[in-house]
């Protein structure tokens, strides 16, 4: 068991390191002139170019720049720019020359909004997806089963951003059925109400695949011999379904759930953009528009770490549930 965890962790660490190196190369060596690329203006004046070059050492060899960045991740670093000294605590992800703040300040203050949105969506898609999935499995072959599967296929097939956009434009902005997003400083009630529309649409669209997962898993479980045994013993159908069937059917769903929540933490980008939720995805997109490379890189790194760590947690958790995976 321990060797499995160690091997799996080493793999995860190597992936994170590779992401770090390739992201660094992409953003610091990718542009033909990194200092110009990080400058807020399209034609940067020489004094400012030099200030940028000096503050993050762009004139030094690439390997040294990387080591400085790497060290900053563990002990933090200070940026001297335009007469100010900005301290960036560990894990320091860099400094934005556009907003003159550390990337940490830009991103970590917004991360909770993304987490709230992802978790609210998760509540929606788990309840809706699992409930309808079981319903479809129990009434397999009936009209309601076909209707549910068909609806989930259609919902899951239309481009997500088009659906989200239409929900944002019509019920939220035009008809005011659901309130628009407001920051938490405006009150907890309006904040959660504003999250409702984005969480609902994100959750409903994601639930489409859960309906099918749950249905298939449940159908497979219900065709097992031990379910027939349970039924023949005269146990009530309710107990058979929930105590014997549901529990066994849920273990594959639990794995997918972990990975999907990780994907959501980085994948709420479109939802945040369309509904104006002030999360890291929206911040990353804004950084893209101003070509604020350090912020984009920070967002990519946070996303990669979240996905890799969640993958690791799910794999290890699953190896406890199902010991066979450890051996493969």
């Amino acid at each position: 068991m321990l060797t499995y965890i160690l091997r799996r962790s080493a793999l995860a660490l190597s992936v994170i390191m590779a992401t770090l190196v390739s992201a660094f190369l992409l953003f610091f060596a990718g542009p033909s002139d990194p200092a110009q690329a990080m400058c807020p203006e399209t034609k940067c004046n020489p004094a400012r170019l030099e200030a940028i070059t000096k503050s993050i050492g762009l004139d030094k060899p690439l390997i040294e720049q990387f080591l400085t960045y790497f060290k900053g991740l563990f002990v933090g670093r200070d940026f001297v720019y335009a007469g100010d000294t900005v301290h960036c605590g560990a894990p320091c992800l860099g400094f934005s020359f556009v907003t003159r703040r550390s990337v940490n300040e830009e991103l970590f203050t917004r991360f909770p909004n993304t987490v709230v949105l992802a978790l609210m969506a998760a509540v929606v898609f788990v309840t809706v997806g699992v409930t309808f999935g079981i319903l479809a499995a129990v009434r397999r072959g009936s009209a309601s089963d076909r209707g549910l599967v068909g609806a989930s296929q259609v919902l899951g097939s239309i481009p997500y951003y088009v659906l989200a956009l239409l929900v944002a434009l019509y019920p939220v902005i035009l008809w005011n059925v659901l309130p628009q997003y407001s920051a938490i400083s405006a009150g907890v009630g309006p904040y959660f109400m504003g999250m409702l529309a984005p969480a609902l649409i994100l959750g409903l669209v994601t639930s489409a695949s859960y309906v099918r997962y749950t249905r298939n898993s449940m159908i497979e479980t219900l065709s097992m011999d031990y379910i027939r045994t349970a039924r023949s013993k005269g146990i009530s159908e309710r107990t058979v379904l929930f105590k014997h069937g549901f529990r066994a059917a849920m273990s594959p769903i639990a794995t997918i759930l972990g990975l999907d929540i990780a994907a959501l933490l980085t994948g709420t980008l479109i939802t945040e953009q369309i509904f104006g939720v002030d999360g890291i995805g929206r911040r990353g997109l804004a950084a893209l528009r101003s070509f604020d490379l350090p912020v984009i890189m920070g967002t990519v790194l946070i996303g990669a770490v979240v996905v890799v760590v969640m993958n690791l947690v799910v794999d290890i958790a699953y190896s406890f549930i199902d010991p066979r995976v450890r051996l493969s």
Partner: protein
Amino acid sequence: MPEPSAATLIEESEETSSTTPPEHQEVRTGRSPGQVAWARLKRDKVAIICSAIILFFLLVAIFAPFLVSLEAVDPITGAKADPSTVHTELVDFNGLPTVGASSAHWLGVEPRLGRDLFARWAYGARPSLIIGFVAAFASTIVGVALGLVGGYLGGATDKVISWIIDFFLSLPILLLVLAIIPIMQKRIAAGNDLTPEQTSAIRFWVLIVILVVFGWMGLARLVRGEVKSLREREFVQAARAIGVPTRSILFREILPNLVGPIIVSASIAVPAYITYEATLSYLGAGLVEPTASWGRTIADAQNLFATYPLWLWPSVIGLSLLVLALSLLGDSIRDAFDPTSRR
């Protein structure tokens, strides 16, 4: 195309020589998975409706110039409609169009620039379809090649390939793609003064390359797993024992067994790439003006959605319907290849 294997040869000869009376047709022996799937697909109503919708959009894309030429000559400009000519005389000083939907402009004209919306819509089908099919084709080839190599060779090569797959799968792809596209574009365009058309064309191909670079992993993993189990099977061992060269083993023995999963994966990839392109265009990293694209039109039109819905809706409907039809057809193809699915 792989050479017909022994199984299909026998079965073809059976079919050609068969003068079996109808009552014996129930006894079906030795049909290839592809033929079974094809037969099931032909009976699937959803698949047929979806194919018709896809065909409609293909025809719109191919005959876009002809369709646009059917529109009447505009009485104000005195010119035939085309997707790129700006007609500021058709909009008022607020940028709102002064002409509505008419025989000269079936869907009206674009606010601010006065371009013909039907022409933009018809030409907008082109980039979606080209990107979808080209990217799906290219990423299928990359995925199959890497999966075959990794799965068959095993050892260190396999370890490296699976690590690369794991690595790519853990990247926040959408964000990375959004960041890479402008960087790559600036690299390519650096120092040259390019016309908007050239910039737009560069962006188009950059987009396809990036979509392929980040889109091959799923299929590669699938193929790798299948090949790993196939290479231990008797027919492959036998081929190796009589000294068949590795290339022939890969392409004549193993690959024909993977046609089902590869077709399924490719058919699901097409709508995924079209969605991706539209999403990127919407977020500002996809296609750029003056290329007509549904994703761009939706992004531009959302600001005037309440006052001028005719700008937004044709692209929304076109994109949704095309992607929906392609996805449902993909689902049908998957079901047709899946022996356990009985709908």
